């Protein structure tokens, strides 16, 4: 494949990261308590409950894509609310305060429309946690998009998290570092960018996401280049 930008002088710098969870001391047993803590908790806790689980300890086969929805379904007995919370796409909110506002809107609506929701009490608390993320440079670089199939299989899950998940809130367009980098190589890679956009990271482990990224890049680049 010829690139309109073969002199691209911005190599892809591979970062890695490690996450550790931190307790906030906030616990909710009822929907009203959950709502009030969502209103007041540090904003990085909201981030953690949408994204942090992917890098932290946890089971890969989650029913819903965020901790709030899981708790409402499994412990509070609010399946309808869980479904409503689970359709929130955090990528749509570049400002996390907007994401917090959306959560509050949905929960307030539930509390306003259903009196029973005020009286439900879970035996298991929702524990608000946040995370400390340490990001470091691996020193590894990719110079060409064609390097992707060779480099991706060796990425740590921390690198996958940083470049494919965390990037969504760092980049204005809510994409990921791979698509962002590929966009600097012109339209030749627009097909690959579209295919990468189709990978849903929420219901897989990070190692499965890595495998999927590798497969998509290998298929595209082999076919296009070959």
């Amino acid at each position, binding site marked *: 494949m010829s690139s309109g930008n073969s002199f691209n002088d911005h190599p892809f710098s591979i970062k890695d990261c*490690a996450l550790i969870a931190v307790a906030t001391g906030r616990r909710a047993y009822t929907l009203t308590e959950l709502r009030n803590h969502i209103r007041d908790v540090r904003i990085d806790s909201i981030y953690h409950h949408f994204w942090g689980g992917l890098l932290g300890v946890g089971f*890969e086969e989650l029913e819903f894509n965020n901790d709030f929805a899981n708790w409402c379904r499994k412990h509070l007995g609010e399946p309808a609310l869980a479904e409503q919370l689970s359709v929130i796409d955090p990528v749509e909110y570049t400002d996390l305060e907007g994401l917090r506002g959306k959560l509050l809107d949905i929960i307030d609506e539930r509390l306003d429309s259903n009196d029973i929701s005020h009286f439900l009490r879970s035996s298991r*608390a929702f*524990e608000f946690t946040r995370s*400390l993320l*340490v990001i470091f440079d691996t020193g590894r670089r990719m110079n060409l998009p064609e390097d992707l199939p060779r480099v991706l299989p*060796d990425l*740590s899950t*921390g690198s996958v998290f940083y470049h494919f998940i965390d990037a969504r809130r760092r980049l204005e367009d809510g994409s990921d570092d791979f698509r962002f980098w590929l966009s600097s190589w012109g339209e030749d890679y627009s097909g690959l960018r579209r295919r990468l956009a189709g990978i849903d990271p929420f219901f897989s482990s990070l190692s499965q996401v890595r495998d999927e990224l590798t497969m998509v890049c290998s298929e595209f680049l082999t076919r296009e280049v070959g």
Partner: protein
Amino acid sequence: MNGLLEAYAEVAGRQVISQLRQLAEHLKGMKVVHVNSTRVGGGVAEILEKLIPLSNELGLETSWEVITGEDDFYQCTKAMHNALQGHPEPIDQRLLDAYEQTNRDNADKMRPKLEEADFVFIHDPQPAPLFSLCPERRGTWIWRCHIDASRPFHPVWRYLRRFVSDYNASIFSLPDFAQDLPHPQYIIPPSIDPLSDKNIDLPEEEIDQAREKFGIDPQRPLLLQVSRFDRFKDPVGVIKAYRLSRKFNPDLQLVLAGGTATDDPEGEQVLNEVKTAAGDDPDIKVLLLPPDAHRTINALQRSAHIIIQKSIKEGFGLTATEGLWKGKPIIGGDTGGIRLQVINYHTGFLVNTPEGAALRIRYLLHKRDQLEEMGAKARKFVLENFLLTRHLREYLTLMVGLLHKADYRIELG
């Protein structure tokens, strides 16, 4: 790559080791000391046994100190352990005096090393007062609580809190164990060592020998609970569950294998209660194993069809993790860290009563395909979440974060 790191790379994957190396690069040459109260027996000692050499291979200067005391000290710390787990019993002043005096005596021996360390990890309540007994300390001190302290007996917690509140940070195994403390509380679940005698793959002959030695029939289903003889592990409840299930599975066998730890004075009394409950049933084996019987425990776990961990209170439940690693579903008490490991219909079942455990035993023995499938999923779950390498990565992350006073995220050059 060095020998130990190379061996872990074989099990956990090369990316995992490469990540440890890069994190450790920022901590090279730093002096790290871990202090606990026993060198053998119990999950903490088992973790430290490998965490220390692995840290050293990564370039940190890590060492392990053990606090020692007399009988009154261990009685006090056992009572403290029970109280943190919610047992409502005050501790005699005589025992508390022994606790404080023992810490003063140990501080006299350890002070120079602790005061010059860059990081000090104090494990559990036993050595907690060492912080205030090392006034010239220069490093960061972290209190690591391995106990389920979610609903502590408050008079004892208030007493202990005096000693731990001034630490720079604390670590709990689960968010619900965290307490009201004036410093950051990090959440780090513990881990198992896949290369230890307790977890390494064993030749089939060795497993056969263990079965033969303890009179276990390989043709009949076997339930196993491995844990200290401690009321919080509910060994008598396990016997009840076995008896309820035997009505439907008359061939069932049960092994209750317990070790002892030097800091647990109640073990013998509970062991006698268990023997009484077992009576003269030849299909119940109550085994008191020495603290170094790791390969025997490993062989028993590999012999079992289902592993039980029917705790009423549990810090984390590493014996459950070990069982999952051997590809066995766990029937576990709905408490503490077992909740993080046992996912209904995926890696086992959470239960609240002997009746609940009996129901799940029947279910799994009836659906052998599902038993196999859950076992495979269980091993993968541990591989991705509960190996020593993940544990060490989180310790390194914590140290790097504390070193740079990072609160939320930090990007290192």
